[in-house]
């Protein structure tokens, strides 16, 4: 079934629906569920949010509804199954009651989480790392163009400037014009033991956006080469597509079997080899411009490269693994946890049951695994970044230190 709901209130309203479900009879739910899930009154935190007009006019995906923005269709997040699945999964480990159980554990630490949006859609979470408005997030989830807005715990929203990126950690440092912000409380002493709970905090008070446990300790993840997600053969019109990997940049770009790609980023590619050469050296998250010939109709589209691990380069694998971060490999030191995240839920703090931030979600890497940068990696890196950035901003013209993301 399809939902239409305001983006920011979506999870909250689903939870309310679920609560209703659990509390009342099945009959009631069947009779009214659809309505409830569709038009749940915006009495959630969403009512307090002021969506800037600019966002409304630039967004293409939805339409204003009660002053709110709607996203259609929603991304289904696996920890909140769609309504029809609500009953059968009422015992899921990440059900509403379980998320609520983390309320006390998370304490006030959720307040240093931010939600980053672009064009009215969430692109990532972020963490406030300095009270003067410095925010760190996952760099490769930020859009290549367009403004990024930063929603805070108090419901306010600020335009964010990209100040610096660290490509080896895939971190970006953003700045917003705010002071006296609550800063994340790092616990860099040790990575929690396997089996310990972790909460991915949200800008909504009370409940985290997802929970999971530590699956494995610190390790290195080798860099995989970036791919578009197509199989190609040479043809008269260019490199002809014989397979589009589900969930890949190629699918996102709308490529279909039979299409011929004849130009990548301005370089003509008439063979499979030429295409591979043009993509080689790209990085996960990078967007490439593609010229495509479909049944003699020519058009241009954009595809995002993903650095997919070898074992994912398979239709079945991509299907069962779900949505994966475009940049999900090439980390010197991460730990593994089993929280089910969407790629756009990465970039924010990962909190233990003492309310301390033990890491930063850096990638959704597959069905069973999300990666987090440990606090002992993020904290020193971020401190250094901020120090440099502050130094630079005092001595150099502001424009000169703004850099393109990619």
């Amino acid at each position: 079934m399809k939902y239409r709901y305001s983006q920011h209130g979506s999870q909250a309203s689903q939870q309310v629906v679920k609560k209703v479900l659990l509390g009342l009879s099945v009959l009631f739910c069947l009779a009214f569920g659809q309505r409830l899930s569709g038009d749940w009154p915006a009495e959630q935190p969403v009512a307090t949010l002021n969506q800037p007009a600019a966002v409304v006019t630039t967004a293409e995906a939805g339409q204003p509804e009660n002053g709110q923005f709607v996203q259609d269709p929603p991304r289904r997040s696996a920890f909140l199954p769609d309504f029809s699945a609500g009953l059968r999964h009422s015992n899921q480990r990440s059900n509403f009651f379980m998320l609520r159980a983390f309320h006390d554990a998370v304490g006030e630490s959720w307040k240093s989480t931010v939600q980053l949006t672009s064009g009215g859609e969430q692109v990532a979470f972020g963490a406030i790392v300095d009270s003067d408005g410095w925010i760190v997030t996952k760099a490769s989830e930020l859009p290549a163009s367009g403004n990024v807005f930063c929603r805070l715990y108090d419901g306010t929203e600020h335009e964010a400037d990209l100040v610096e990126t660290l490509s080896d950690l895939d971190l970006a440092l953003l700045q917003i014009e705010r002071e006296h912000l609550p800063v994340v409380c790092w616990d860099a002493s040790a990575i929690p033991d396997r089996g310990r709970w972790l909460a991915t905090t949200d800008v909504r008070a009370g409940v985290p956006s997802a929970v999971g446990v530590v699956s494995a300790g610190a390790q290195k993840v080798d860099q995989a080469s970036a791919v578009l997600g197509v199989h190609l053969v040479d043809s008269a019109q260019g490199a002809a597509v014989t397979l589009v990997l589900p969930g890949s940049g190629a699918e996102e770009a709308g490529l279909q079997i039979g299409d011929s790609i004849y130009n990548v980023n301005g370089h003509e590619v008439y063979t499979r080899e030429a295409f591979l050469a043009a993509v080689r050296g790209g990085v996960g998250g990078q967007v490439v411009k593609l010229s495509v010939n479909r049944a003699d109709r020519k058009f241009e589209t954009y595809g995002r490269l993903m650095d997919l691990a070898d074992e994912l380069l398979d239709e079945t694998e991509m299907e069962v693994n779900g949505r994966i971060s475009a940049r999900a490999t090439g980390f010197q030191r991460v730990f593994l946890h089993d929280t089910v995240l969407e790629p756009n839920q990465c970039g924010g703090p990962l909190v233990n049951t003492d309310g301390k931030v033990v890491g930063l979600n850096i990638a959704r890497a597959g069905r069973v695994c999300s990666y987090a940068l440990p606090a002992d990696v993020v904290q020193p890196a971020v401190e250094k970044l901020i120090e440099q950035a502050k130094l630079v901003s005092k001595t150099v013209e502001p424009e000169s230190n703004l850099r393109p993301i990619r």
Partner: protein
Amino acid sequence: MPLSPTRPRPEAYERQRGLDRQANILWKTCGTLALLVAVLCQPALAQPSGAAAAQERTTRKPITAGSSSRPEGATYVALGNGLQDVFQGKEPSTLEELKALELQQSLVAKAIEKVTVNVQQGSAQGSGVIISADGYVLTAAHVAGGADRPATVVLSDGTRVRARTLGMNRDKDAGLLQILDQREGGWPHATLGKSSELKVGQWCIASGHPGGWKAARGAAIRVGRILSISRNRDDGEAHTLFTDCALIGGDSGGPLFTLEGKLIGVHSRIGTDVVDNMHVPIDVFATSWDRMARKEVWGVLPGFQPVIGVVGAKRDERPVISSVMAGGPADRAGILAGDLVLSVDGVKITTFEELRLAVQASTPGDIMLLVVQRGEDVLRMPVTIGVAEQ
């Protein structure tokens, strides 16, 4: 309402690429039987290890003893204080309960590391769990592949030991193997639980080797809950546990434990949705034990019917391929209609029926070498066995 998985998907597809994955374990429940097992194993241990000894041991059935105060096995962790409600399948309602739950989880996670193994059989990799001091390892049938085959078991510390597959119940995806080497003091092994006592909502802890053996990672831990239990219509015995412990290829055959560290299931298959994860209940291993120990193989793996995608005339005197399914395994291997099959894996065949039987006896992901005659040419064609559409 039983949870109907969306397209149950055997995880062994990776075999086709020679990647690692899957395996699991199983065992029989019954609580504690350590003493009995230990006693039974003594004679076997005294013998030189080898096929004869293994054969001897396989006839013994590690069985339960009565319930003593502390269950036998290395993975049992007494339930922490204040966890009774949570153990029965409730969400923790206070911070104390949440912390008690996570402490319990971390203790079990640590305890099950030593009994979770990686199983390598042929081109496939999966997981498994050691369930007795003399080295019985439960796994999934699709990981074990076939009976009486050599296999390698990789322990949590990276040690590789030789093993031999025993029998398998393919209907339920239960498989058994045994480590051939002995170890002083016996192998660390799991405490056995009973799947018949499980309730929907109960917490469980899964481990395994997703994606195959990775030295820097070891077994990966996941925590979830039992979402539903599917039972046979006739006797009411559970045949599949569904949990939201997310699994992926390589996990197959790995163990599922309760909060007390008792083994209750072995990972088997998944659906597309991340909450569709299926496990073989431990009781299935108990009821299949005698036959599996005798190296019997029976049943058909659900969604695991091997095919190569060719059609031929059953009554034809010669095994001539009359048509090839486009995009099927034979097609990808380059086999054409009109090819005459001379041999399969080195064994000469003379009818299409023999080819059919050879394929049926194989496991998806295996590579089968067909020698075919095309006109004047004799060609060697390795075909990767595929899975029949359901």
